């Protein structure tokens, strides 16, 4: 549990000039409290599961991260649509989509990691060719590609239009992949291992899961606001900031 205090310093840093505001500081503090609570409840207070014993503790992380990854990708899709829709078109939507996708990719990676560790404990293998697991991996790769498209260069409008279209194509692709993998597994001999492992959550376990969802949602909001603002500043620097930076260097020279 050494990590939350690193986060404290991160939030403390944002109290000075930067991307922080009173609201983000509040969310940041709540996130830290939530994460500490998640650590305490997930690792110490909640009991081991009857069937899965202690490996169920991984799920408190896993469910939280996968939830955020899905939320993040949904936000990316909606913001991209908002950008492409002529009446709401604004680069803010594009930056929101980009910030959200970046967070989504990070959390998808964490989801795959926690998921495979959990799978090793409860299924005996890191990976099963289950439709949900496989389309999750595809989602990860697709949004890594989306981020690469964002990095292609060109004007901000070009970047925004290109990446918005790619984000909407991803919405077309993901269900198709999911469906085809499902069909593929369905027609094969062994039904998915995932269906055979059930967790009956109740009491403290359910409460820990609830804490996880709340804490990770707060974390997502905090990350999204900061990341979006950083992107806005990068765009502003691309546009006009160069002159300003040069002016500052000149001023420094005079001192």
């Amino acid at each position: 549990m050494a990590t939350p205090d690193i986060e404290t310093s991160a939030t403390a840093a944002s109290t000075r000039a930067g991307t922080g505001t009173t609201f983000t500081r509040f969310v940041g503090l709540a996130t830290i409290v939530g994460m500490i609570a998640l650590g305490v409840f997930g690792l110490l207070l909640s009991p081991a599961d009857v069937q899965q014993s202690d490996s169920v503790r991984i799920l408190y992380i896993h469910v939280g991260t996968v939830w955020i990854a899905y939320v993040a990708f949904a936000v990316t899709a909606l913001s991209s649509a908002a950008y492409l829709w002529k009446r709401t078109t604004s680069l803010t939507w594009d930056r929101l989509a980009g910030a959200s996708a970046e967070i989504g990719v990070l959390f998808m990676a964490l989801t795959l990691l926690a998921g495979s560790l959990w799978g090793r404990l409860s299924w005996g293998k890191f990976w099963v060719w289950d439709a949900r697991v496989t389309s999750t991996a595809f989602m990860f790769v697709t949004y890594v590609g989306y981020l690469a498209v964002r990095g292609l260069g060109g004007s901000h409008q070009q970047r925004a239009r290109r990446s918005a279209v790619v984000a909407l194509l991803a919405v077309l692709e993901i269900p198709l992949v999911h469906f085809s993998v499902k069909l593929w597994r369905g027609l094969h001999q062994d039904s998915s291992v995932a269906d055979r492992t059930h967790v009956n959550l109740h009491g403290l376990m359910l409460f820990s899961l609830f804490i996880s969802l709340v804490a990770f949602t707060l974390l997502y909001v905090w990350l999204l606001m900061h990341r979006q603002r950083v992107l806005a500043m990068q765009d502003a620097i691309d546009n006009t900031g160069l002159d300003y930076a040069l002016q500052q260097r000149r001023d420094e020279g005079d001192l």
Partner: protein
Amino acid sequence: MFRVARLIAAKDLRVELRSRVVTNQVLPFAAIVMVMFAFALNSDAVVSRVAPGLVWLATLFSLLILVQRSFAIENADGATDALRAAGVDPSGIFLGKAMALAVQLAVLELVLLVSAVVLYSTELRVGGIVLLLVTFVAATVGLALVGTLYGGLAGGVRGRETLLPLLLLPVVAPVLIGATRATESALGTGGATVADGWPWVGLLAVFVALFSVGGTLAFGPLIEE
């Protein structure tokens, strides 16, 4: 739109007929990939069991090269810019390039199928011919559509050579799954019956339907600068 598409397709195919880049470079590449698969798997039984999958894998690899070639001829001399400046309908460009790509893919797949018959002793059966044909047509159209779509996106941008596979391969995964299973049914690989294959053709049809509409709509904004 369709008139434009026909013109663009005819132009692409004429460029190919005169330059013979696909014929002289991509087809031999696909054939050598088929030989390499046999080296890697090192067993006649395994190779003949997985032959349909290998045919489609080799098709996907070659698709990446075909798409790059298809947009390399557009970017040389700023051909795309000229087309756009002339006010040519982007949907027409999209369908035209997809048609030309589909023709080239069809030739390539034929070569791959023949090489599977020769190298992997794959046997065609009469009852599966219709399924085989429909599968190849549906998969070819689907691959040509998404290939053109993402090729247009990556074309004309620095670093496109490495970006295209990353974008394209996840999208065509349903085609690989569907086409491979349907081909297995058509050939009777691993005891599959012809009737097993038709649901997979349905999957391919859904794929084609979604990406023909999605691609026609998306291509314009993607290539606009």
